[in-house]
């Protein structure tokens, strides 16, 4: 069996072919192999959510995936959301509601919110809380994040947009 595995991963629309150690975590592959440092590591045991990315359109903890495991997959990181993957209303709502302070948890939240609003364009407050209970923030106390998400949802509905999960 090999020291390194050849993989082909599409990240934010760009195909990357690399050889990786089997144990290289997807988060480290994204951050250090590809230089996409927007995905953050907060715990490396799947609890804090800062490392959340989209894998084939579904949110996943990149600290709990090996790069080798997602050979052939399409990954979207926060950088990909910013590059036209996410409708601007989510970004704007976070900004206008002061839903971030240090910004460390923010990428994980943006991915989770993106998925939430793609699945459920009109979430209730309780549904937003349930959907985001797996993302920890230590700065904001969540009050403004909740307001931002509800506002983003209503702006998206008003403009007829819906986040795409790719």
């Amino acid at each position, binding site marked *: 069996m090999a020291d390194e595995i050849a993989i082909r991963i599409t990240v934010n629309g760009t195909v990357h072919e690399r050889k990786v150690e089997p144990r290289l975590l997807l988060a480290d592959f994204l951050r250090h192999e590809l230089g996409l440092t927007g995905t953050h590591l907060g715990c490396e045991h799947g609890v804090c959510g*800062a490392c959340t990315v989209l894998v084939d359109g579904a949110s996943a903890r990149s600290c709990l995936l090996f790069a080798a495991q997602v050979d052939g997959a399409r990954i979207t990181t926060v950088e990909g959301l910013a590059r036209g993957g996410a409708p601007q209303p989510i970004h704007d709502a976070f900004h206008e509601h002061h839903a971030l302070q240090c910004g*460390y948890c923010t990428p994980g939240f943006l991915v989770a919110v993106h998925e939430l609003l793609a699945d459920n364009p009109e979430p209730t407050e309780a549904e937003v809380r349930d959907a985001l209970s797996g993302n920890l923030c230590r700065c904001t106390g969540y009050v403004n994040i909740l307001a931002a998400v509800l506002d983003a949802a209503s702006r998206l509905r008003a403009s007829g947009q819906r986040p795409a999960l790719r």
Partner: protein
Amino acid sequence: MAHETTRGWVGRRALRIEDDKLLKGRGIFADDLHLAGLLHLTFVRSPHAHARIRAIRTERAAAVRGVVAVFTGHDLAARCKPIYVDVIFPSYKAPSRPVVAVDVVKFVGEAVAVVVAESRYVGEDAADLVEVDYEPLRAVVDVEAALDPAAGVVHPDLGDNVLFKGKFATDKFDAAFASGDLVLRERFRSTRVAGVPLEPRGCVAAVEPGRGTLTFWSSTQIPHMLRTAIADLVNVPGLSEAKIRVITPEVGGGFGTKAHVYPEELVTAALALELGRPVKYTQDRREELLTDIHARDHIYDVDVAVGRDGVLKAVRTRILTNAGAFPSLPFGCTLEPTGGARMLPGPYRLRNYAYETYAIATNTGPSGAYRGVAQPTCFMAIEGMMDRIGRALGIDPAEVRLRNLVQPEEMPYVNVVGVRYDTGSYVAALRRALELVDYEGFRTQQASGQPRDGKYRGIGIACFTEVSGTGAPGFRARGLKRIPGFDSALLKVEPTGAVTCVLSTAGAGQGHETTFAQLIADELGVPMDVVTILEGDTTGGPYGSGTFASRSVVTGGGAIVRAGAKLKAKMARIAGHLLEASAPDIVFENGLAFVRGMPGAKVTLREIAENAYSMSSKGLPPDEDYGLEATDYYDPPLVTMANATHIAAVAVDPRKGGIEIERYVVVHDCGRVINPMIVEGQIHGGCAQGIGQAVLEAMVYDADGQCRTASFMDYLLPTIKDVPAMIVDHIESPSIDAAGGFKGVGEGGVIGAVPALTNAVADALAALGANVNSTPLTPDRVLAFIESAAQSRSAGR
């Protein structure tokens, strides 16, 4: 002020300049930094709370492919001086701490060796192969047990575990205490918690070949003090501060944990200098929980003597604080015991006060300054007593407070330990909070037993004063000689007319770039978008303390106001010279200088700057120097005292012990509010941490000193489901002592939430006779409070 300015930015909910890069994932945090040839550090850490190191063998580790070197504590002792935290206080005694343990380890997680490798993966492989022969020793863990040296002494050379003891009593205290109509006693117990920023600590050190300058990036709140520590403690000849540059990248939360100098930072600097390659250390979450400073493992024994009317006659307290295994640099271990003791009188008119307060060493993680320091616990104590006074005397707890609060006409007020409260709104904040929470409505409902859903409902009040903006005299009063106390601002107009301000403060998410730009815009009469705030580069500007203890708007803001005045005076002189008017007649608005009463006569800030930099057709005014900048070092008075009232209403489920927060109100007074949106964000975040301490968080050490909560599965942070909607209201009582009138706000949320919630639960269960006096109020403890009350009742009490 001699000159008029555009008022318009201070007080606005200006959106943050910081956000765009963070929302796009383009913020660069310490672990995001990459340099060619980077080496990674992995520390080998003690699994024992107290043990002798009999032998340590590193050959197998060093042989792993990708490992460059392995260093033991003995090796590093030659490269880094030990850390000794110097606090000037009689009775203070402190151990010396090697950066990596040499002969003995004193807490679980203390480093015993470090691996330098091509990656963290390889480093951990090698760390697994470092062989250490430990001889376990008895560990002393409990703060009260450690008072007795027979339980075990953490630092035998110090004799016992009492690292600090403070004592105070007002004149004729005993007589005053005896004059009370009623004496109440209580013991309040707070379980250890930690700040837990979401970004684990990290640093990168790189040495420039040739000049040998060390650039040190660190996720720190104290870049200047860190630079001094590196110069002092890293043992490389010729390494002075001139050769050290500390830069803070984006910092993912600090809350005080990152306002300390850690041994790993010194090791990283030393090894980069030695190995000639850049070196990075990023801690993982387990290391963060084990080795970042802990806080609030406190016991307060409080006795109060009151009159029949509920007015305090005298208060006595004995405070035990767990210092952990070592004092932390630069705060030592006196911050919590002195803070708790000095702040306990709070906003109350108390003239007879006595305390004994201790910092006690144990074989646990070192303690330090975490947001609020000892205020969440001392207010849990005094506010808990105010409620008990009410219950004992049949007086509503809000009324008890109103009878004891310092009244507006008594301000400025010097409290019983000599702390001056210059301005404040203690009564107004309480009244407003009572109104916003509908206190009367709640009490009516509570009395009627509605709603009948089987839950017990209670309401808890926390009125408190909040230390902010501590200056040099304030730190000296607490013996903290290593903390400068001042901060600085270098404010300049560039040749293009842009405005730059370099501050010695160092934000970690609080929105300094935006807040200070708003202030400068008003002070100089320029649009906000021409102002750039620079923080976190020791090469860029003058020295200062950094950001912690709710200081930056007081010290940084004060320095800006004072530097702004000097700079504006020069701007006016040059504008007058250009417009052939006299300086006092110049008015600044929106980046333009006008002659008062002559709107046609104007000149731009750029034109003024060009003159100052000798890039215009006209020379400088006579007797004027080139350049257009001003520097101010601002040292505020002892402290400035913010204040707030928090009120929480809870529903307690007696079947499962769950607590739901049904109403939460904060009325906060931080003097002049620059950006209400950012202030509210600080309060929300602080309240969330207070909720965490009150019901979720506990850093648990077992009897052997093993930490049982070293992961996020066991150390439980509040989630979005745990923080309720909140009403936040502001009152502004500008400081009359601090330049600019500012007071801090960063810590208020957590200081108020802990007592408000413990009081609310206590109120909910009071009718059962339960005595709620500790945190966290986990479901099993809540049930235990209820059951023990039931047992007491049936025993016929």
